């Protein structure tokens, strides 16, 4: 099933067994699993794609791939515990097994972004599906114009991938701005909602391409700010979440207007979904 170029293979409903090689606590409710596949299978994916992770005897959930697209011996997923399956997943230890199907779905437009200013906007756990893009941008930095990362979290303790953000912000060719919704005086960075970073961020709205991932309400406000700065909907990409079951466009669980999020998404160009976005029934 695991193929190169992020293609879904012949038996997409049958999970492959993966073994947890390493488990890392990211924040108080978020953890990253580093998984190796049975029979040392290689794995490749495109940034933005997701896998269905099956916690045996509990259930299956879609989780984005958060690792480096350049590495193929390991699959990384960063998960936030919110309910039954993610809670059980959090209880898994190094050496435990889980089922994996994938990779599924559409990808972030890393090629379309070449030659442009790239603005990566992530909120909370939304940094996980965007981390593969950031690895790609750093590895091929010369292909892009200005690269700006805007990241918002609830509190300083909720900031994901602190070390990597620190490393990227130390680079002279990348600008990283982080903000938190609330903090005490021990935090010396920005405080304020993520939208406050957008008017000040160093990019040219006429040529920039933005990739936005986070809770829907956060993406809604960020898109509004991007529009205000002059970034048009055809240069804004968002990653959508809906409940999923088959992940291959058969069951209809993830329907979103005329789209299936598992197959046509999760990454959408904003003008493709603009009319449904923020409409309650959708």
């Amino acid at each position, binding site marked *: 099933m695991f193929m190169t170029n992020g293609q879904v293979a012949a038996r997409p409903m049958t999970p492959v067994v993966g073994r947890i090689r390493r488990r890392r606590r990211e924040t108080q409710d978020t953890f990253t699993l580093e998984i190796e596949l049975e029979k040392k299978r290689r794995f490749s994916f495109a940034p933005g794609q997701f896998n269905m992770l099956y916690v045996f005897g509990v259930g299956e959930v879609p989780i984005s791939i958060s690792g480096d697209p350049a590495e193929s011996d390991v699959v990384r997923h960063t998960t936030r515990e919110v309910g039954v399956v993610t809670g059980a997943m959090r209880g898994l230890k190094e050496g435990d097994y889980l089922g994996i199907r994938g990779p599924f779905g559409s990808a972030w437009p890393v090629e379309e972004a070449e030659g442009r200013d790239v603005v990566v906007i992530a*909120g909370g756990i939304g940094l996980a599906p965007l981390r593969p893009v950031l690895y790609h941008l750093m590895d091929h930095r010369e292909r892009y114009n200005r690269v700006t990362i805007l990241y*918002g979290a609830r509190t300083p303790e909720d900031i994901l991938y602190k070390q990597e953000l620190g490393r990227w912000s130390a680079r002279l060719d990348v600008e990283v701005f982080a903000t938190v919704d609330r903090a005490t005086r021990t935090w010396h960075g920005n405080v*304020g909602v993520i939208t406050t970073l957008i*008017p000040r961020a160093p990019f040219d709205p006429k040529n920039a391409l933005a990739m936005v991932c986070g809770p829907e*309400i956060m993406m809604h406000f960020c898109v509004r700010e991007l529009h205000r700065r002059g970034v048009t909907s055809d240069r804004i990409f968002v990653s959508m979440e809906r409940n999923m079951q088959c992940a291959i466009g058969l069951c209809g669980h993830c329907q979103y207007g005329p789209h299936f999020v598992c197959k046509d998404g999760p990454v959408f160009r904003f003008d493709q979904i603009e009319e449904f976005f923020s409409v309650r029934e959708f």
Partner: protein
Amino acid sequence: MTVQSITQSLAELRFFKDMPREHLEMLAGCASPVAFKKGEFLLLVGHEATHFVAIREGMVALEMEAANKITTLQTIGEGSIVGWSWLVPPYTWHYDARAATPVSAIQFDARCVRDLCESNPAFGYDVLKHFSHVIVERLMNTRIQLADMYH
């Protein structure tokens, strides 16, 4: 700094972009450059709002004390304004503003600006329009914050 050089400094700040030169000159007549050391307070809750500040460089933290804990509500950076309570009675600050880094700014005498607003309605309306943005933005930000969107 002369009125001319303050006018020029104001013209370079994001907040004042779109304001006619003539109005910037009027504001500059009520303004003077200031610097705050890290940790110094620009405004104190409950005190009379006698002035407001435009940040040229540095970061200011708006803070509130509740349940014996000081919480930072928002940080404000370059090109932005600290303080709008000088515009509406009873002209008292609603929060503390502390320099989170060394801050270089332009400080305005609130009474001087209010008097100009009263005597020149076109200027007054322009100032009000610019400050409405700050007020609406802070209100929107507070609403987004209350939505606790990452929870």
